[in-house]
């Protein structure tokens, strides 16, 4: 085993460079191909539009990355996104307190805080199920996925909250700021993604918690015996994933100025795909924010490009699937040989 490792690190080969930077090269290739095929692709305005679409998947996939680094999976983020959108929508429409005979219209900042809190709470439920009740992450989050979706449908009776702009008189305007406004010409949603990505990156590379996360994902037993609070780490990653799903839900509802209970269906799969394309190992302990961001942009830019050159949406699905399979294949080439120990 040591012989193969040595041989690997000896030569600096092109194949190895391509393998390690595969998500980056894939993104370059996608941009090059579509710029060639369509004059509308390689423009600043198109990149900004595409990026604001990527933002939602990107925010979800950072939460997903944390969970996958821990060796888990979170299937509930799409549903949490919808639930949180609906919760925010309900608050924007006014919360009726029958016993007091009043309708409360909380200001937008309160809506945002409460919505994120709801997402974090649902995420924490995932974490407790996994860490304390030893429910396998796949099953726990699958259950929560259904429950959250069901609650969202119940809250709205299956309908969609439209017109979330609020009104001047009620003092709750500004909800659409998140989805429509720009700072220095950049959509707010992209800035939110950048801030989330930078914070997550710092946490992973520079904080004690990040090291705990990599260690407990790589070998939970060894981490525990080294004094790592493995349960706390678990609950935290699911909580953060839930909170980020709420943020994504807010961004989406704001972009659409409406919140429906069926929003975000299958988004969890896109987020998983972004993490995998970014080179993270589904077994935990390997991966990073940079890769995951590249993965999210690969998926987003690919599907946007296919739309722009007029490929049917059925073909888009086929292409996305092919990219995911290819990415996993590359991951197993990169980790498969070195990963196994005698």
């Amino acid at each position, binding site marked *: 085993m*040591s012989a193969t490792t040595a041989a690997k*690190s000896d030569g600096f080969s092109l194949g190895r460079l391509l393998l390690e930077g595969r998500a980056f090269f894939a993104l370059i290739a996608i941009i090059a191909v579509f710029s060639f095929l369509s004059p509308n692709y390689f423009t600043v305005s198109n990149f900004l539009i595409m990026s604001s679409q990527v933002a939602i998947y990107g925010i979800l996939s950072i939460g997903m990355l944390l969970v996958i680094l821990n060796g888990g999976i979170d299937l509930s983020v799409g549903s949490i996104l919808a639930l949180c959108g609906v919760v925010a929508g309900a608050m924007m429409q006014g919360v009726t307190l029958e016993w007091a005979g009043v309708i409360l219209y909380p200001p937008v900042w309160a809506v945002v805080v409460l919505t994120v809190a709801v997402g974090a709470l649902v995420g924490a439920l995932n974490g407790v199920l996994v860490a304390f009740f030893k429910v396998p992450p796949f099953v726990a989050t699958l259950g929560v996925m259904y429950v959250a979706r069901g609650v969202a449908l119940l809250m709205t009776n299956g309908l969609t909250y439209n017109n979330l702009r609020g009104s001047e008189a009620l003092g709750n305007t500004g909800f659409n700021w998140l989805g429509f406004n720009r700072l220095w010409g950049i959509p707010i949603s992209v800035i939110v993604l950048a801030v989330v990505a930078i914070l997550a990156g710092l946490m992973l590379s520079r904080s004690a918690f990040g*090291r705990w996360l990599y260690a407990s994902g790589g070998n939970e037993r060894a981490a525990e015996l080294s004094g790592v609070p493995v349960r706390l780490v678990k609950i935290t990653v699911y909580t953060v994933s839930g909170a980020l799903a709420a943020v994504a839900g807010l961004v989406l509802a704001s972009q659409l100025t409406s919140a429906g209970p069926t929003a975000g269906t299958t988004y969890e799969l896109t987020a998983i795909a972004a993490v995998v394309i970014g080179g993270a190992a589904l077994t935990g302990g390997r991966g990073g924010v940079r890769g995951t961001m590249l993965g999210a942009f690969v998926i987003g830019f690919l599907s946007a490009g296919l739309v722009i050159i007029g490929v049917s949406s059925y073909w888009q699905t086929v292409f996305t699937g092919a990219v995911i399979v290819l990415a996993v294949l590359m991951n197993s080439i990169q980790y498969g040989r070195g990963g196994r120990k005698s």
Partner: protein
Amino acid sequence: MSAQTQGAPDAAEVVLAARNVAKSYGNVHALKGVNFDIHRGQVTTLFGENGAGKSTLMKILSGVIRPTSGQIILDGQPVSFASANEARDRGISIIHQELSLAPNLSVRDNIFMGREIRGPLGVDFAEEERQVRLLMEELEEEIDPLTPVEELRLGQQQIVEIARALSVDSRILIMDEPTSALSASEVEVLFKVIRDLTAKGVSIVYISHHLEEALTITDHAVVLRDGTMTAYAPRAEIDLDWIVRNMVGENYDLGSPPDSARRGIALSIRGLSVPDATGKDLVRDLSLDVRAGEIVCIYGLMGAGRTELLETCAGRLRASAGEIVLEGQEISHLSIAERIARGLALVPEDRQRDGLVQTMSVGQNLSLASIRDFTRGLFTSRRAERKLIEDSIRSVTVKTAGGAAPIGSLSGGNQQKVVIGKMLATKPRVILLDEPSRGIDIGAKAEVFRLLAEGARQGLAVIYSTSEVGECLSVAHRIVVMHKGRISAEFDSTVTKEKIMAASGESVAA
């Protein structure tokens, strides 16, 4: 060395022979040229400590791996097996220490797994069942072919494994530690089966750590040490002393107890009991005091409760009764992390499973248990971490390309030093090491024990466990022998190997 290779100690026909068989993994020589014969209808036992090369040799004989050099001769013909299946087709079967049965399937389905008898309507279950009944009659065991394996006692499961080997007409049966999990009565049954098999001309290769038990059944003994065969002789010429002498060797220096000042009691275990999942006590009402600067060795066989004792002290397992007192403070209710913070560290037995994070670098593994020491506010300090890693690499003498090297690039001995270095970096007052020498070569062993002696000189209380008697008589001031969850004897460092083995239950005749 005292190699007593005699031509033909017995008149019985040689069915399988190893000639100069050697096996290397890179620079690690697991087996360095071994010669011996297996005779028809007789039992040949392989003796040797952990890491002596027994399992490598068995894997070669059963076709699981191929030797780097040397020959295997079956019925006078040199053979080379491409796989374990090919060896099985030629009549060589192996029964591993961990049984390879599917617990949810019936005895019948297990025995015919992968080579089901086909009938016109799929599998011919009736024929399979009939054959299993015949086999069980032959083995004189009353096991119903339709019982799920999980409902059988361990001894019976072993019989099922043997039946499976016999069902493919094995002439040579290799058994790895077949008695380690059996009760005394089950051992009796197994030995009767072995005698019946040999009477029918089946040759048995037997591996066991229970020396005296093995002596009651064997016809020939092969002793391995560090990949070399140190002795080969028929039963009539050997006794327990002979085996131990050849297993352990005379010039086997792992240091001597350091003349450290032994101060106050650092760790005190009082009346500790640890139950397993079924409520049976693995550690029973055990008390032990260890002083600062003292090195205590815990010797015992597999299943004596050493690992459970150490893991309970470290906080991995929960005790059902008793106290663990660290420097005057009861710590039973604390978490693993809190115990580490108070100065109690464990180096676990299985470094791959419990000691190392394979996805991280050498440096990250070394610093894992002391991240708080180089965290400034929210973030870790890279400079402080690098200093800690460099200090650790130097103090435990890890041979590595640097802190950034992948942990998998190190040899077993250096990986073990990383695990020890990781726990020493937490600046413990008491360190527990569960089989610190397992699976590492003799040079690395000596270095590990030198580290322990060095720690004791600086006032560290050290407890290490071992199943190799030679390692008791190295740096330990005191040797505690565990047997079935209790301390069966306590010795100072002048004791003999034979006395230690006797107290462990190793020489209790079956």
